[in-house]
C-alpha cells in the first residue's frame, strides 16, 4: 500500500512540475468562467425548471472540457516514462505491474478532480448571485460530481491504455482523444428507446453518456450507470495491465 501511495505521489508531483498540468488547470478555469457567464445570461432570461447542474451538463461545456483534458492528463503516464527510459528503472524494482497501472490511473484521477474544483466555485457563485438556493440542490450537485468522476474515470482509463501502447505522448493523446470522441459520438445518437431498433441500437442506447449525465445531474443514481462505468473502467485498466505485461511475453 505504501508503495502504491509513493507512486501516486510521484505521479501527482510529476504533473504539477510539468507545464501541461498548469495548462490543463488554466484551460479548465477559463472554460468554467465562460460557462458561468453563459449560465448567468440564461438565468437572466427567465426562470428555468431544471437545477443549474443539469443546465451545466446540457450546455456542452462539460464535453468541451472533458474531451480534450483527459487525453492531456493521461498522455504522460506511460509514454513519457518510456521515452525517457525511467520506465525501465521503474519496472526493475519489485513493484507489481498492476500496482504501477493503478497508481498512474489514481494519480490522473486525483489531478482530474482537482482540475474540476473551480466548477464548485462557479456553482457557489451562481447560488450567491441568484439568491435562489433551489437552483443548487445539494443532492443534484453531489450526483453531478459523481457523474463527473465516473465519466472521468472511464476516459482516464482509456487514456492510460493509449499511453501504455506507445512511447510518444502525442500519439497517446491523439489516440485517447479519438477513443473519447468515438464514445461521445455514440452517445449523440437520437436517444429514442425505439422498439424498432435492434439489439445493437439498444446496446448503444445503454452506453449513451448523455443519458447517464442527465440522470446524474438530476441527482438520480441509477445502479445500471454505476455498473457500466465501473466495469468499463476496470476493463480498460485490465487491458492496460496486459499491455504493460506484454513486455514479458515471448
Amino acid at each position, binding site marked *: 500500500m505504501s508503495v502504491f501511495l509513493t507512486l501516486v505521489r510521484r505521479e501527482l508531483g510529476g504533473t504539477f512540475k510539468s507545464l501541461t498540468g498548469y495548462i490543463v488547470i488554466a484551460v479548465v478555469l477559463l472554460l468554467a468562467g465562460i460557462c458561468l457567464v453563459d449560465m448567468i445570461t440564461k438565468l437572466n432570461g427567465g426562470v428555468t425548471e431544471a437545477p443549474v447542474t443539469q443546465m451545466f451538463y446540457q450546455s456542452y461545456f462539460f464535453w468541451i472540457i472533458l474531451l480534450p483534458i483527459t487525453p492531456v492528463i493521461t498522455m504522460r503516464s506511460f509514454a513519457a516514462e518510456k521515452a525517457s*527510459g525511467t520506465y525501465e528503472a521503474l519496472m*526493475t*524494482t519489485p513493484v507489481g505491474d498492476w500496482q504501477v497501472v493503478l497508481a498512474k490511473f489514481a494519480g490522473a484521477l486525483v489531478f482530474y478532480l482537482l482540475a474540476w474544483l473551480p466548477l464548485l466555485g462557479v456553482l457557489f457563485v451562481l447560488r450567491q448571485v441568484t439568491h435562489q438556493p433551489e437552483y443548487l440542490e445539494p443532492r443534484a450537485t453531489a450526483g453531478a460530481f459523481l457523474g463527473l468522476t465516473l465519466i472521468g474515470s472511464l476516459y482516464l482509463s482509456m487514456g492510460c491504455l493509449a499511453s501504455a501502447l506507445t512511447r510518444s505522448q502525442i500519439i497517446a493523446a491523439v489516440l485517447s482523444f479519438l477513443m473519447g470522441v468515438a464514445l461521445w459520438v455514440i452517445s449523440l445518437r437520437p436517444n429514442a428507446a425505439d422498439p424498432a431498433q435492434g439489439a445493437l441500437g439498444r446496446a448503444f442506447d445503454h452506453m449513451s453518456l448523455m443519458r447517464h449525465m442527465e440522470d446524474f445531474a438530476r441527482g438520480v443514481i441509477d445502479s445500471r450507470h454505476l455498473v457500466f462505468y465501473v466495469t468499463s473502467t476496470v476493463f480498460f485498466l485490465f487491458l492496460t495491465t496486459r499491455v504493460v505485461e506484454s513486455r514479458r511475453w515471448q
Partner: protein
Amino acid sequence: MESVPMIEVRDLTKRYPGRTAVDGLTFSVARGEIVGFLGPNGAGKSTTMRILASYLPATSGTARVAGFDVFHQTDEVRRRIGYMPEHNPLHLDMRVREYLKFRARLKGLGWRRSRERVDTVIEQCSLRDVERRIIGQLSKGYRQRVGLADALVHEPDLIILDEPTIGLDPHQIRAVRALIKSLAENHTVLLSTHILSEVEMVCTRVLILNQGRIIAADTAHNLERHLQLDGQVIAEIAAPANDLRETFRDLPEIERLDIQPIDGAFMRVALTPKNGHDLRPIVFEQVRTRGWTLRELTRDRHSLEDIFVHLTKGRKEDQ
C-alpha cells in the same frame, strides 16, 4: 546459500525478429567478484543485463540470480539487484534526495530505513553538496553518481551497471571507477563497457562478448598471458645501425628485429621475442657491454584492446 553463485546463466538466447542479440551464453559469477562485460556496441551486453534484471524475457535458456530464476521468481530477483540501465535514466524534475527516497520506497524500504539508507548512499557517492538540487540541473558526473546511489540504496547483493562511465570526463570517470571499486567489499558487481582500460582497472574478471557470444573469459592478466601476445620491446639506443643489427640478429630469443633512425645518433630498435621472453635484461646487457647510450627501454604491454582485436579478427576469419 554461500555455495550458490551470484549469477548463473546457461545457454541464454535472446532473439529479436531477424536478429539474434544473445546467442547461447553460459557463464557464472561468484559472490564478491567484479565482472566486466566487454564488447563492441550491439554485442549483446545490454540485452543480457536486461534479462538478468528480469526486464526482458529470454527466448531460451535459464538465468539465475542468487539461485532465483529471473523469469519465474521475478520479485525475489528484483529485490536482490540494483540495476542502473543504459544512459542512466532519472526523473529530471526531482531533487536528488527526493528521488533517492522515492526509489528506496519503491524498493520496499520502510520510511525510517529509507531515510537512513538515503543518508548512507548520499555520503558514499559524495552527493551531500547537491542533495537538494534538481537532478535536471546537475552535471553528468553527478547524475551518474545519483544513478549509482539509486542502485545501492536497498543494499542489493548484486549490482548491475550498464555502461556506468559513458559520456563522462576523465575526472568524473576516475571518481566513478573508484566508487565502483569500493563497492566490491560488500557487493557483487557486473558492469558493461566498451572502454577496454576500464575493465582492466576495475574488474577481477572479464567476459568478452561479440555478436552475442562469449569469446573469452578470464582475468585481464591471464588473457594477456594466455594469448602470448606480450613482449615487443622498444629501445632507443645511440649506436650505428649496422652494429645494432649484427648484435641483435644472432640472439636466439629474438624473433624479429626492426631498426629505424630517429633523431641524431639515436636509433629506435623494435624487438619481438620468441615464446614470450622478456627481452629487456638482454637488451640492457648488450648496451652495457658495448658501451652504447640507452635513453629508453620499454615493453609494450599488450592491452585488452589488442586482445580484443585479436579475438574478434580470429572470429571473422573463421566465418
